[in-house]
């Protein structure tokens, strides 16, 4: 039931980040999201006695809940991001769209209910988190919220990995982290507006 509570918090932070209009607040919600995810990984890892998941849980807490938000803040100061990010979808449409997405994804995951060992609800919630992160990416015009949407998508995938399969092989988890770090490097390069040499 602790897992239930934390998965509820995971989805809650994601939905709140869909309505926010300030960049730093969005980074805070992303950080909370990763924090809850790390706690979940540690809880499930302890229950299954899976060392790989405990390590990745700690890595999530350190890298995704602290490291990446700090770096995003650093980037936003260095490259002067726009910090006011109103969503392109008006609130009254979002109020209808988000429940519609939730219903759609829960309906999609209905047949899996009997097929997964463990709780099938968690798979449904991770699929809906994936779609909601896609919505987060699509509803903002500026680049920084799109990056945070992509990072939330990685969080949803990690949640799926924890709950659906009882942990992905260590190699894959490490590979995913490595790719995430490389993505940050590439982003740093991309933001550098080099002078056009003619």
């Amino acid at each position: 039931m602790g897992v239930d509570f934390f998965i509820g918090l995971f989805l809650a932070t994601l939905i709140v980040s869909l309505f926010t209009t300030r960049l730093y607040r969005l980074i805070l919600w992303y950080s909370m999201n990763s924090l809850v995810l790390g706690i979940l990984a540690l809880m499930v890892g302890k229950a299954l006695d899976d060392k790989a998941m405990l390590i990745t849980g700690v890595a999530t807490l350190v890298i995704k809940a602290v490291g990446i938000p700090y770096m995003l803040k650093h980037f936003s100061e260095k490259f002067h991001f726009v910090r006011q990010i109103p969503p392109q979808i008006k609130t009254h449409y979002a109020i209808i769209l988000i429940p519609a997405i939730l219903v759609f994804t829960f309906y999609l995951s209905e047949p899996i209910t009997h097929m997964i060992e463990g709780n099938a609800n968690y798979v449904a919630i991770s699929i809906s988190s994936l779609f909601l992160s896609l919505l987060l990416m699509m509803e903002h015009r500026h680049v920084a919220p799109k990056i945070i949407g992509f990072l939330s998508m990685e969080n949803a995938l990690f949640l799926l990995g924890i709950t659906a399969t009882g942990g992905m092989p260590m190699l894959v988890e490490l590979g995913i982290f490595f790719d995430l770090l490389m993505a940050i490097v590439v982003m740093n390069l991309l933001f550098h507006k080099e002078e056009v040499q003619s």
Partner: protein
Amino acid sequence: MMLTLLVLPALVMFVASLIKHPKIKLLLPVSSFAILLPIVKLFMLPKPYAIWGDYLVADRLDTYVLLVSSLVGIGVTLALLTLDKHVKVTAKAYRRFYRFFAIFWVGLIFSILANHMGIYWIGLELATLSTVYMIKTNHTPAAHKEAWNYMIVGAIAISLVLFGIILMYASAKPILGEEAMQFNLLLAHAKEIPSPFLFEMGFAIATVGMFVKMGFFPMNLWLANIERASFYPVAALFSGILESAVIIGFFRFSKIAMEVNYAHLFGFVFVYTLLTIFIVAFLIFRAKDFMRLFSLSGVEHMALIALFWVSGGTFAALLHFGAHAFLKPALFLSTGVLESRGKYRIAGALRGYSGKKGELFWVVVSLFLLAIISLPPSPMFFSELYGFGAMIEMAKQSDHMLAMIAAILLLLILLSIIFYRFVAVYQSMKYEGEEVEKKVYASELFALVLFALCLLVLLLPVSFSYLRSIV
């Protein structure tokens, strides 16, 4: 040992890019040719040959795709020697380009040889992220915007693939445990998967991710715009190497899905690819410059490959894939020369070449242009024959013969629209426009001749029989 030999050229390129000597890049084509040695060795070894435990296993499909991509890599390295003669690029950006090209190549070698779904995905992600910077080497605002566009949509597509992989792993984990990540085991135990719906959902999501990456509906123009905004070698790398890795993933996943539920797989891929070809045919008709024309044509060919593969025409799909992987990068590399007097000048692009090199160039490029629209004796012609034959074969065994014939007729009409446009482009290139002097360099000519030779080798009976023996 084998693995180090395979990644050695890429490592050499990476190291060379850190040295600031101007002539160092002449070393690179030589070192890139060295990749052919381990590949030839791989061809001779008994398959499946484990290169790195269970993670990287070379079977017949692997080695073929690896050979094709490596040849494309060699060709692009050759053409890169004269990049700065055609476009404006600083020395620093040039070196960064080589660095990211090296990372790209390593990622793709891992991806192609992978037997483990996780390794496949990591290699693909590495390749995607390194291409982002390669797009941005071109310092225009359009390139900057397109690099971001590519990053965002590419990241979404790759995440969808990971999502599908996780679901497929979850569906097979009850019977295979941690080894459910391996393609060969999944294929062997496909019928025993306890929850086929979960596997199919994972496959559908992963396929959507892979199709988006290759530029299918609805992202048709995304790829075209990206290739327009970047340099021509980047486009060559996309259509030659990156798409090879994505399509081999599709081949492997669909083979497993065919065991699980053929009807669903066929319906899904059939409708998707037909829709894509429909839209792309009309987009090609309206394309006004070389890059967009070629990249849209690339999308259309990839859709045909996917369609042939799921209809059971594996030989046709592989032949088409090989031919496309040689023709498309060759055409992209030649746009470096064709557009040397301006981007939107299709008319007269094949005129104004003098000397032996110029003559050879325009003959080879015209042959490529005609080959890509499946005029005989291009391998594309044969592959389409065999492919349509396989589709009819498959329809004979089910009740949908009439629907299949209608679909093939529709496909032929769409292909003829593309055919018409390409012929019109060729006419305009050859017979209209002014004669403006264009210069061809030896290295890129060498690359084009190399591709032409590979294409001819593909037509030999021994290669046909090898392709038939794959799967």
